[in-house]
């Protein structure tokens, strides 16, 4: 320890300033509280411009709330994740731990002024989002005391698996191709081709390739030659 005499001990104030991470077991969660109502005020003034008034939708960002049901709150597994009809995957459809949201909003939101919220603001705005997601009632006050209750109602709390196969460098893969060299497939089927409209969807490809070499960029302002 301290083999190099480089660096120095962190002070308590420094630790307090930077040690902001909150874990699923709520280690790191600062005390405090906030009501849905106050959260609504913060949301409308500070978040809605990007995320929409009800956090459900707007033209720009993937919604935070939506796609979960009372049934999900019981099972802890969001059923709409199975449905190709579900248009988007909202935050509440996926996130399994409420700590994640507290931690993230505190460190990163509002996006254009991160780290400007006080802990009480985070409790409030999170209470508001939880109410929108129908996880807590309208008159709820979220706090460090009752957050574990909320956790027990997170719609996708049972929807995650820690996948060791791709966590460990020596983990077990789930696909099993072989290095076949000859006559490997009876016949080759093209399952999907670039749609014609997508040929020029990323701009004129002639201007995205080198002007010398083995190839040129296709002039995608014109239809493909035949």
């Amino acid at each position: 320890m301290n083999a190099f005499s480089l660096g120095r001990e962190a002070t308590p104030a420094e630790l307090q300033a930077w040690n902001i991470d909150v874990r699923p077991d709520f280690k790191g969660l600062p005390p405090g509280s906030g009501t849905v109502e106050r959260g609504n005020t913060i949301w409308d003034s500070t978040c809605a411009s990007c995320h929409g008034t009800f956090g459900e939708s707007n033209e720009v960002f993937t919604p935070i709330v939506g796609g979960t049901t009372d049934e999900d709150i019981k099972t802890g597994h969001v059923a709409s994740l199975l449905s190709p009809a579900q248009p988007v995957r909202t935050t509440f459809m996926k996130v399994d731990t409420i700590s994640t949201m507290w931690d993230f909003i505190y460190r990163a939101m509002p996006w254009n002024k991160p780290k400007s919220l006080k802990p009480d603001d985070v409790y409030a705005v999170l209470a508001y989002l939880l109410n929108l997601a129908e996880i807590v009632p309208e008159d709820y006050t979220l706090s460090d005391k009752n957050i574990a209750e909320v956790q027990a109602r997170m719609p996708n709390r049972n929807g995650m698996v820690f996948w060791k196969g791709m966590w460990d460098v020596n983990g077990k893969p789930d696909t099993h191709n072989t290095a076949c060299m000859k006559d490997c497939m009876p016949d080759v089927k093209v399952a999907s081709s670039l749609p014609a409209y997508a040929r020029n969807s990323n701009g004129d490809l002639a201007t995205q390739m080198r002007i010398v070499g083995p190839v040129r960029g296709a002039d995608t302002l014109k239809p493909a030659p035949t």
Partner: protein
Amino acid sequence: AATPAAGAAAQAAQGDPMILQPRPWSTMLGHPVAFHPYGVPSKYEANLQRRQSPGLTQTAQASVAFAPLQGFFGIITPNGLHFERHHQGWVDIDPDQHRFMINGMVKEPKVYTMDDLMRMPSVSRIHFIECGANTGMEWGNAAVPTVQYTHGMLSCCEYTGVPLKVLLDDCGADLKNGKYVLAEGNDGSSTTRTISMEAALDDVMVAWAMNGEMLRPENGYPLRLVVPGVQGVSWVKWLRRIKVGDQPWNAMNETSAYVDLMPDGMLRQYTSIQECKSVITSPSGGQMLMGKGYYNVSGLAWSGRGKIKQVDVSFDGGRNWRTARLETPILDKCLTRFNIDWVWDGSPAILQSRAMDSTGFVQPRYGQLHAVRGTRSTYHNNAIQSWQVADTGEVFNVHVE
């Protein structure tokens, strides 16, 4: 006297004006040295740029700029064309004001300046970095036209930094109970990711340099984590803190993003390792072959689990395969450049590459990946890429199951 047209024809018969008429550059005095104290590419290379894919993200700060793999050579990515992926935009940190903290399950939580860190015993190693979302737009079907957009969240640099293990030792980390470390950035997002202690004690680096110079601001200047073999989001940029703990943190980028949606509706978390993968970069989608004949088909292969052992290439959509030449060096968790001869007879063809790594794992076909993980996933698409060459010479992105 001959007419101008006849004169031009006579000259054509004599040879190429590019040789017969002295070029300006061979008959003039050129530019002085240090004309560019820090040099830039030739103006004739301007087509090779980092680019966004229109419609992919809703903002340009929580977004991606793809690297133009179609124009790369070898394995080193020039720093100016390294792919970009930010969560809250990139920042230009004054390195003199930057601090790095280690806390959590350590005997002594510590603060280091860049001066401190850069005095420590450093290592230099070449590794690939690939975003977990690379090739994500392609999970379901062929969606984007060129390899820049299908595979361009991939780069490879020589990194220099201090092994994280050295720093953990310096703080007296509790290696018995501390099974995880948290890495945190110093940008607006202060992105956090959980790293396995196994990796932290193996080859993870707290790095300040890429390709011989300091990190670029877009890539985390002055400090980033390098987590060889693991998806890019864990290579936390503008790194300000490492915390030792006994549980994973379940951060937003471990729950809402970078989770793999399975056909049964479960989300796989902590799918960190970038499994063995390869792609042909020349010829590739959106390019036109310059006529029949010989081509050196070239591409990249990599694995987050070790070295590349073999790359095979098919010209008939996966029915038959030939083994490609591998360029040296072949390094652990590093890009490997492969090349193979091809004589194009002018008829349609489907080109594929298939990599095998030092564990014996073989890159899957789309059919194999879909069979296990379905078609609605976003991350960790390492399926074999197919490029269909039309008889016109134009190359198209297609999927073969």
